């Protein structure tokens, strides 16, 4: 009796398991909520040009109504002594990597949201508060957010920041590619202020073209790698650098999209609700058969008596 039940149980669980693995390995294509626009915009950051004046930080804060020190104070270079990350109070920061051996200058790297083509945050957000817009921006809807911070877990660049100190209505904050400004035809604040034009604003396509051109024109100046061209399936913001991006603390990421297999698995388990319904039907069937068997057993027993 016990053996039989165990066998059945195992059979069922094995079936469930097989079903799930079978579906997860099959790549079920996730239905995108958005269609990537051909002419979506992006920014090319040439780290070999950046001088670390941090005007972008000031412009960003000013454009997003965040509290900021006066612009003159941004000349202070002691902030570079330790590595900083964007947070809820500073959506972009510039870091400095001291010159090594033959380098003439330190390398400054501006950090902000990469605005992935296939963003993990958009995929992850439980309420769909994140969205990839037609112009390339990945933005966040404060009215939907419930503050679960799954976007922060998902982001491969560790970008979304949360207002942990707020007890009431904390926000997720991250670079929004100045969505409100670009909507009005303005440039993103950091792009506009950058004195060196480290940041080039243009369609992603033209930026990649330009980046390749720069690399071939100045092979001594750049390494042959545009960070963001293929990383996590492509990002709207792209980087050029004179040395390996790993040395500049860029995460080493593959070319698979950031949501990775998670969407495939998700849609595998839920492919048009077929697997759950099938499981339901299966369990219903098993239940019915077992009940019948139990009844007939009982009847037999009664009969014997």
């Amino acid at each position, binding site marked *: 009796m016990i053996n039989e039940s165990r066998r059945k149980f195992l059979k069922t669980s094995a079936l469930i398991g097989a079903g799930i693995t079978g579906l997860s390995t099959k790549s079920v294509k996730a239905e995108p909520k958005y269609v990537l626009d051909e002419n979506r915009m992006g920014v090319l950051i040439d780290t070999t*040009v950046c001088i*670390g004046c941090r005007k972008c930080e000031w412009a960003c804060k000013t454009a997003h109504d965040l509290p900021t020190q006066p612009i003159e104070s941004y*000349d202070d270079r002691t902030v570079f002594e330790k590595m900083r990350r964007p947070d809820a109070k500073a959506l972009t920061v510039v870091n400095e990597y001291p010159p090594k051996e033959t380098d003439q200058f330190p390398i400054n790297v501006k950090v902000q949201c990469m605005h992935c083509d296939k963003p993990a945050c958009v995929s992850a957000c439980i309420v769909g508060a994140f969205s990839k817009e037609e112009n390339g921006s990945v933005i966040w809807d404060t009215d939907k957010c419930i503050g679960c911070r799954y976007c922060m877990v998902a982001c491969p660049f560790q970008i979304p920041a949360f207002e942990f100190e707020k007890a009431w209505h904390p926000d997720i904050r991250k670079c929004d590619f100045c969505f409100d400004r670009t909507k009005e035809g303005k440039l993103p604040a950091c792009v506009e202020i950058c004195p060196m*034009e480290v940041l080039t604003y243009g369609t992603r396509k033209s930026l990649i073209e330009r980046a390749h051109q720069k690399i071939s*024109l100045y092979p001594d100046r750049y390494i042959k790698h545009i960070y963001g061209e293929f990383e996590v399936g492509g990002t709207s913001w792209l980087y050029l650098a004179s040395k390996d991006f790993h040395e500049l603390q860029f995460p080493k990421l593959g070319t698979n999209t950031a949501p990775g297999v998670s969407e495939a698995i998700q849609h595998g388990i839920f492919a048009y609700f077929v697997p759950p319904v099938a499981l339901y039907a299966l369990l219903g069937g098993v239940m019915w058969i077992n009940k019948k068997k139990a009844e007939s057993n009982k009847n037999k027993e009664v009969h014997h008596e």
Partner: protein
Amino acid sequence: MKKLIIIILFLAPILIQSQTKLNSTHANLNLTCSNCHSCTIPTKENPCLKPCPRESLIRIDQKPEEGPRVIVIDKLRDTDIYAPVKFSHLAHAEMADMTGGCRTCHHYNPPGNVIGCSDCHETTRKRADITKPDLKGAYHQQCMNCHRSWSGKTDCNDCHVVKEKADLKPVKVKDEKSKRIHPEVKAPEKISFNTKTDKGKFVTFYHNDHTGLFGLECSQCHSNESCAKCHSQIKKPAEIKKSFAEQHKKCSSCHEVKTGCNKCHSNKESGPFNHKISTGFDLAKFHSKLNCARCHTTPSKFTGLIKDCVTCHGTWSWDNFDHKKTGLVLNETHGELDCESCHKDKSYANPTCTDCHDDLTYPKNLPGKLIKR
């Protein structure tokens, strides 16, 4: 085929028109079209210019004084938070004169005069053509490269004043054409290098030989050098071990550095370049006033000439040689002889008298009268 003819017919006037203009500018550039243009038939509408910079292609150098003395950079005044910068063009041109000349900043010049930044670089940052930076970016990329290596600082207020604090009076530019701003850089006569090699510790570098005698341009050696070469305010990092190639980089473009060590390296300080000692051909007599290129016609190639006069002068005859130039006016008898009658060897050095005269010898007896050369 028909279409092609029509196109050619259509294009002909344009081509001819542009061709006529070319005569004044393009033609004397000594360039092939493909240096600048990516297509075979560039037109005015579609010049299909190759992307900037094309510094290696066209070179127009002017003297610092020929350019403007001060430029007020006010093209961006509407959008900028800073007041226009008064840029001392002359001072910067003088500094650039010590390195790459105009090209240090004017990295691309079409035929004609040196052109300004805003001729190519757009003032608006939001633009379709992103192959070159906008004007603001172009300025800063140009300036910061030197300023940063010179002072190590990137402070905006080194050059800028915020609008509110700026003195908005029009700039008065005094016309002082004669006065230099940057003191002239005095080139050293010689530099004695104390190298680490055992064989030939000393390398005596005669700077004036290279600039004067050999006619090298400053920028041929001093390229990509910024003000920091002299003015650096940052302490230089400890000397790094350079490779052989790196150490000899500057010399190796002319000198054979791999084999000819003892040409430059010696155990004691050596003297300046001496044509007689180095090559065996004495310039002192008749060639001292010539510059090297007069004989060494291939640029920066000084070897391969044969000492014989014929190499340069051809065979001497009364038609191409005036004996007076040697300081000896021949008397009538000798004035009618062929050169070879007296000068037996190819060097045309001392004459042989014994063929005709038994008792006369040169220079004891002269075939004419000495004059002062």
